[in-house]
Each structure stands twice: as structure tokens, then as C-alpha cells.
């Protein structure tokens, strides 16, 4: 069980400003919940770099190579046919299928990796129990902060957040 403070903002700029200076509140930035992606927020969370594209590239490559191998293997070794006097192995006509299937492969692997990395599907999540999060998918920008342990410090942090523009600060547990 981790205790979190959820600070609600109405404007992304305000939230970002608060997040940039979160050290002043004594809290540690845990996460943010926003209705659209805010790139700077990811940087602040140290989540900016991701290896997703590498996975997608490799996945696409595997699909494409697999397709190309299937073509070559079946056309040259498994059942070679004289098809209109064309060569058995003809890369020029073999590239279209791997290309298309490779792109699909990349998309599929990308989706799977996205799911794995985000932990989705996560239909039941502790945070869903907390009212403010409902609007994070609509129009609120919410900072999730790990508050300091001391109760007094926590109160100060709350105050700081309100001052930074949060319209409300609530507690949540994950």
C-alpha cells in the first residue's frame, strides 16, 4: 500500500509548472494522469525514452523474414514449379508479401509490447476507486505525488499544491 496525493489541475500548464517544482513540496512525483499526452510530463517522470520502437523493428523483421523464408522455401525446395518459365527464386516478386506482413508484424508486436509495458489491460486498478481520477480522462490534469511521511510535511505539501494552482488535493492509495 502506497499512499498518494492526487492534485487536480484544470490547465496543463499549471500542472506542468507544479510538476517541475515538485521538490519544493517535499513530495516525490509518482505519476500524472492527463486527458491527452503531455510530452514534458514524461520527461519529468523519467519515462521519456522507451525501447518500443526497437521491439517493433525486430518484430517486423521477424515477420518479414519469416514470410520471405516461407516463400523461398516453398517455391524453391518444397514444391518447385515452372511457372511461366520464371526463375524459381525471384526476389523481386517475393518482396511484396514480406513487406506487408512485416509492417503488420511490427504493429502487432508494438501493440503487444505496449500492453506489456503499460500493464494493460488493467480493468481493476486500485486508483479507479478514487473519484478525481474519473476526470483525468476528460478534462482534469492530475499529479500523483508520494507525500512525505510526516503528517505535518504532508499538510505543507498540500498547501503548496493548492498554491501552485491545484483546485483540489485528495488522498489515494495504491
Amino acid at each position, binding site marked *: 500500500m502506497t499512499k498518494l496525493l492526487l492534485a487536480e489541475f484544470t490547465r496543463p500548464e499549471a500542472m506542468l509548472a507544479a510538476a517541475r517544482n515538485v521538490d519544493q513540496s517535499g513530495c516525490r512525483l509518482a505519476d500524472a494522469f492527463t486527458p491527452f499526452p503531455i510530452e514534458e510530463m514524461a520527461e519529468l517522470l523519467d519515462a521519456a525514452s522507451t525501447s518500443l520502437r526497437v521491439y517493433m523493428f525486430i518484430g517486423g523483421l521477424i515477420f518479414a523474414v519469416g514470410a520471405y523464408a516461407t516463400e523461398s522455401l516453398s517455391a524453391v525446395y518444397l514444391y518447385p*514449379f*515452372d*511457372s*511461366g*518459365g*520464371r526463375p524459381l527464386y525471384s526476389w523481386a*516478386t517475393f518482396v511484396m508479401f514480406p513487406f506487408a506482413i512485416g509492417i503488420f508484424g511490427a504493429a502487432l508486436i508494438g501493440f503487444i509490447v505496449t500492453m506489456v509495458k503499460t500493464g494493460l489491460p488493467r480493468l481493476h486498478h486500485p486508483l479507479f476507486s478514487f473519484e478525481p481520477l474519473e476526470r483525468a480522462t476528460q478534462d482534469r490534469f492530475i499529479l500523483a505525488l508520494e507525500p512525505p511521511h510526516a503528517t505535518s510535511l504532508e499538510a505543507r505539501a498540500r498547501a503548496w499544491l493548492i498554491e501552485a494552482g491545484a483546485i483540489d488535493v485528495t488522498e489515494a492509495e495504491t
Partner: protein
Amino acid sequence: MSFAPDRRDALKLLAMGATAALGACGPPEEEIVPYVEMPEGLTPGVPMQFTTALPLSGYARGALVTSYEGRPTRIEGNPRHPASLGACDIFAQAEIMTLYNPDRAKAVLNEGNLSSWEDFEKALLSQMQIERGRRGSKLTILTGRVTSPTMVRQIQALLKSFPGAQWRRYEPIHDDAEISGATMAFGRPLLPIPRLDQAAVVVSLDADPLGPGPYQLAYAYAFAQKRLARKGVIQFGRLYAVESCLSLTGANSDERLALPPHLIRGFIVDIANRLGAKLPQEALGDDASRFAAAVVEDLKANPGHGVFLVGRGQPAETHALCHWINRALKAPVDYFPPVDPVASTHVDSLRGLVEDIDNGRVESLFIIGCNPAYAAPGELAVDDAIAKVPFSAYHGLYDDETAARCKWRLPLSHTLESWSDLRALDGAVSVVQPLIRPLYDTRTAHQLLALMGGMLSASSYQLVRETLQARAPRDFETHWRQWLHDGIIQGSANAPLAPPNVTLPHMDPLQAPRGPSLTFAPDPSIWDGSYANNAWLQECPKPTTKEVWGNSIHISPSDAAANDLEEGDIVTLRRGEHSLEAPVNIVQGQAAGVLGATLGYGRRRAGAIGEGLGFDAYKLMPIGTPWAAHNVALSRTGARSTILRTQRSFHLAPERREIYPTVTLQGFTEGNIDISERRGLPTLLPEWEYDSYKWAMSIDNTLCIGCNACLVACRSENNVPVVGPIEVSMGREMHWLRVDVYYRDEPTPLGFQPVPCMHCEKAPCEPVCPVEASVHDSEGLNVQVYNRCIGTRFCQSNCPYKVRRFNFFGYATDDVYANLHAQSFDAQFNPDVTVRSRGVMEKCTYCLQRISRARRTAEKENRRIAEGEIVTACQAACPTRAIIFGDLSNADGKVSQLRNEPQHYEMLGHLGTRPRTTYLAAIENPNPALREKEE
């Protein structure tokens, strides 16, 4: 996947010795039905071949019939027979379709009610009793042309016991004028047969030796002997045609002149005068006399090698004059005594019958194997006359127009079910042997005639043997076997007579008709109408117009323009009180002022296939001049219909002539051959090694006369289904092999070109197939795997030759035109070829089943397939041997040699398809004298 009915269904049927229906959609388990007792000499699944003879207008053409387990599937020509010489015309091949036709007369009918042979026998015996009492004075037998020695013997025996009886014979496509003309010239009826292989100059005046007819195959073969141009060997004649309507002979001529019938007479008179006849000159145009002058010039340059032919449409005196000219030219013509035993003319014979009936002189009428109620000049009103006869019996294959007018309708056995004998035009006798037991309760004409003579259970077999006994009094059995084996009785042909003396006929001046003339000709596809119910023939495109499933009035472009007619406009033709309505077809090469019609359509009772198609031209046929009605009134009705064709574009733009290049004989001899061919183009694709056989085909456009024998052969051999008129109107057909005809702006077509699959080495159809249904095999065949085909049709869309055919519907099995939903048709299928289902592509396979059979035989014997061992169906049927199939890897083989001929070309070779089917360009031999003046 169902390719039903498959060959095993067929096996089952026949093993049971019956074509009675078996459950087609049976349980998933298959049955094996063996024989109870195996017939001697039979191996299941191995076809046997038997000889027989098939009649066309009474004359025999020898045939070799292929039979699987007692089930005839395929008819080819008998090489020993003088009227077939190994080839086979469309009518003979299509007899298979007639044999299994479900519309055939199957049972005895009395006044339209089901009866039996026993009832008929009773009625007949009492009727014959009456006739016997009056010595047969009111008994008449009407037949078509009878050449069967047995039948002649039987009829003559009947006439002996009924001295007052009459034998009438009427053949719709008759030779009255020829016979009368010969009688006029020689004082007796003689049958002239020109030796076309010895004629350097052939002049055909409205004659059509290359067209359909009982001696077409022999004429075409002889003609081909004078159409040979190879490196080092040139045997080439020149064919002139002067005719009103474009015939096959005209289409194959080197020089052609379109003239109305009366000017053709003028033309021959002009020729005769130029040869010294001193007849009163008749009117003739400038073009025609220039043509005549050129012809005479040519004839004089080739003494003893020029021959004149006159067609049945010309009057007797023209024929007589032709005989005079031929004698004057010392033409290579043989004169034979006529085979037809009846002396009177056909029209007179039939007219006599009608008069007899009208005068009450006929009370018992037997009509055997002919259909005069339909196929006779409308003026005679034969059908009404027949209906007046108190006791009439009709013995025929179908319940047709004549049957409907007779009291008794007796089902006739098909030739393939009968023992009989027949004679060819030259008199050669063949034994007709049955290939299958009668499918229905039918009897042969011999049995009926025997019945009339009082023999209740005569056997045709015995009757025929009795007749032929005289030909080999000693050791008959050995001879009999030999005759059956050979399909002909050697030495039975008549010997040609010594050239008789000839009289110059008296030529009355002829009055030119005022209105248009309507000429009649047998239909190139259904002959006189007797093949109207044959779907193969209905869908066989007429050679020069590619019409199917109907006929039309042919009209020249100038007449069409004058009457403001377009193709498909329906016109009314009126002659006296008779009239008919028909669509017009504008035909190049038709003489101005002449309308052309073919006979055989407008059948009123023919069966499900033949009825309701086209118009009945017999209605307007005059009695006096049966082949041309003069002063016909033509008027537009305003209605239109579509003329169904399998080819719609006939003109090759000059730059497209590479499809059908032509070379003049002069150019050929001088080595000046410009067929602007681009072949052997470089390719990025690697060469493919063919290390065994390399199958290939060569087609000589010069030799192809457009007779369609190959097309019907292919259909018969390869189970190619009929699609019917509705599908043709949609632009669909299934012929694996088509015969293209192209025209130029002259009255002569460029020529004919059979187009099967090209079996391209770099086949465009193959790489586009996503499932390998279209692939090459290691012998270079472009094969189509039906069971793998999913029907994308990409192959056909990418085929530059458009030779692939798609089963848009289940033509072979579900479609009504292919089989009339009758089980009996299933027996016609070649069990060695898959019957294709709906949704698959098919095409020419070079008769793969024959290649495979030969390959298996050769491999079992550890040898290579020999040159000439494989003959494709189209090749076998071709009367001129225009199609040659063989192995390219054999450098001495015929195909390889033909590929080295200078006029050899690849169709559309510039596409880099490397076709295995290649062509020899058509060589023409125009008369330079006529060409110079034109230029």
C-alpha cells in the same frame, strides 16, 4: 468437390449394360460394380476402336469409333475409307450427341398414344394383307437417298412381291441439277468426281467442294495436295471461285468473284465461248469478263490440269456446259456410275408422291429415315398431303414434323446401334456395325422392311450378311472379319468410266430477274436440318460468319445500304403467297442483288435443342429452281434481333496483320517473305531446361479450310460443354479451340486460323495464378489443374490470345443446354478427361490424356514415344492435315521441320511468350493479271 458424373459413374452405367439412371447424388460411399461375366477381349478402362460408316445424305463416310466398356464416346475418321481418309467431318463426330440424345424417339406411338411393336406388327400385317390383295397398287415407300445394298435389295424384293407399289426417294440436299446436267451432256446420269490433287487451276462456279457434304473430306484432302509450299517443294494450284454467297470454297480461293446466279451462267457461257463453243453470248459485266479472260488464260497455260466445277444451284444446262468445258480442257475428272439406284429426280419423286396422295393413289405410306414434312419446298405442302394417307407409318430417329403427320411413329435405331451397310459417293461399300445395343426399343430400317415383307423377327445382322455373301462366296467369314476390321470392302468402289463423249448443250437465253434472288444452301452446321437437335452442331460457329444457334439472311453491304438495313434488322421476305421473317446479316463477299439463306432452321418439331431457332427457308423454296428463288420481295419490319456470334471483330488493321500474315506464292518462291515478325527477343528471364519431350504444334494457315472439324473434335474428345444461346449472347463460350476468320476489303476473306492454347514457354497466364492451377510441366505443356483452380480468371485476363475458357456456370453438369438434364448424355463423356465443375478455368491441353496414355505405354515398354504416336483430336479430324503435333526435341520430327520453314511465325511473338503452338503463314496464289489491273 464434385466433378460428377465422373468416369466411375460412367463405368457403373455401362458395366450394368444399361444407361438407365443410377442415383447421381448417392451416399458418400462409392460402389464398385463389376461385370457378372466379363465380355471377351475387354479390359475395363481401356478403350477399343471399331470401324463403321456413317451416312450423310445417304452416302457413307468411314469412321473409327472409340468405345469404353461398350459405350461409344468418340468418332474419328477411318483412314482406309475413300470418303474420310482418316479425317472426320463435324456431322459424323456429332453423331455421338445424337445417339445419346434424350429427345430421340423411344417407343412406338399410334396416333400419338403409346403403343408397341407388337401392336404395330398386327396392324401392319392386316394392312399388308390388303395391299397384297391389290398387288400393292396403293402402297408407297418414301425414303431418303438409299445406298445400303441390303436396303436396296430389301426394297426391290418388296417391289417384286407388290408390283404396283411405288418407291419414292427424296433427299433435301439433292443433286437433281447435276444428274440432269450429266444426262444432258452424256446421255446418261454420271457422277463426276474431280481429281483436285491433279488440278493446277480449279474454277468453282457456285460449287462448294470444300464445304460441308458427304465427300468434303476427300475433296479437302485432294485440294490440300495442291496447297503445299515448303522449302524445296512447291505443289500449288490456283483456285478461282465465282459464286453468289461466300462458301468455304470461295473463302479459300485465290481469286474470287461475287456474281448473282444468272450472271454465273453468263460467265460460264463466256468461258465456253472463249474455248470455242460459239454459244450466244450473255450479258456479263466488265469485271466478270476480265475475270473470265484471266481464267481462260490460266487454263490455257495449264493444259490438262484445269478443272471446272459447277454447284447444285446452277441449272442442268450449266452443268452440261461444264462437262463440255472439262472435256475440252481434258480436265482431271473421273466419271462414276451413280450409286443412287433411283433414276428420277428427287423433286419429281416427291412431287409424284404428293400427286399420288391427292389423287387417292396412296393408302399405305411408309416413310423411312427422312423428314419431308419439314425439309421440302413449302409449295408442295407435303405435310398436309401425308396427313391424308389412311395408313401411314414413320420410321425415324426423332418424333419430328413428319412423324406428327403419320398414324404410326416407329423409333429408328441410330446408325451406331445398327447393323447395316452403306456406300460412299464412289460406290465403296462399308459394313455398318453397332457400337452399342439399342438404348431404346428401336429397330433398324432393315427390320421394318423385313417386317413389311412378312418376316417378324428378322435380324439386321443376318440380312446384311446375306447381302454381302455375294461379294465373297468362298471363305465368307474371313472376309467378313476383314471387312469389319478395315471398315470397307476393298475393291468395292466403282471403277471410273472411260471419258464419255459429250454434247454441247443448247443454252436458252436467260432473263435477268428483276428483284433480288434468294439462294438456299445447306447449313454449314446443321446441314438440311436433320442435325438441328444436336447441341454440338448448333454451337459450332458457321465458318464465315461465326453465327451460332440460328441462321440469318445474308445480304451484301451495298444491298444493305440501299435498303437501310443494319445487322440484326428483321425483314420480311415474300415470294408469292409464302413469306418469312428473318434477321439480316451483312456479309462481305455476298453478291449484290442476292440474298443468302441456309436451310435447316425454323424446325417445328425437332426436340428441346432444335426448336424455335432461326427461320425455315424451305418455305420459300421453289419447286422449279429449288436452290434460288428469284424476284423475292424484301421489306423491313422494324423489329430487331441479335445475331449470335462467337467472333465479332473480323478486320485486322494493317499493323495487326502480324496475327495473320499472308505471303504470295510468288513472294515465297522468290524468298521474299515479309511477315514482319519479331521473335526471339531478348529476355531477362533465364532459359528453362526441357530435358525430355518438348511438345509443340504447328498449324498451317494455308491448309486450313475452316471446316470446323477440329473444333468439334476437341469438344468431343475433351468433354467441352455446350453453353447455349443465352450464354453465347452474354459473350461466353467454351470451345477450347476456335477457328478465327479475318476479312479484308475484298470479297475474299484473308483466311482461317485455328487457335488452340499456345502453350507459351514464358506463359503470361502462369505467374499470375495465385494457387498454381496454371503451371508448366517438365515437357513444356501449359497445364491447367482444374481441381486446384479457384477461379480468379487472372490467367485469362492476362492471356494475349484469350484461349482460356471459364465455367461461369456449371455448364457440363447443371446447365440445360449441355445435357438437357438427361442422364443418357453422361455416357458421352470421355472418361479420361475430367468433367469440369462450375467456377474453374479450362483450356486446350494438347490432348494431355493422349500424351499421358502414349507416355505410359512407352514407359512400360522402356522406349521413347515415337514420332506421330500421339495425334491430338484436332489433328486427327483435320481433312487437310493443317495441324501437326509432335516433339520439338526430335530435330527430324515434323514439327521441328515446319519450324524451319520460311513462312513460319509465332503469333504475337513480340510479346516474348515463346509459344509452342506456331503457325505457317497463309500462302496465296493470286493471278497477277487480275491484280495488276486493280492497281
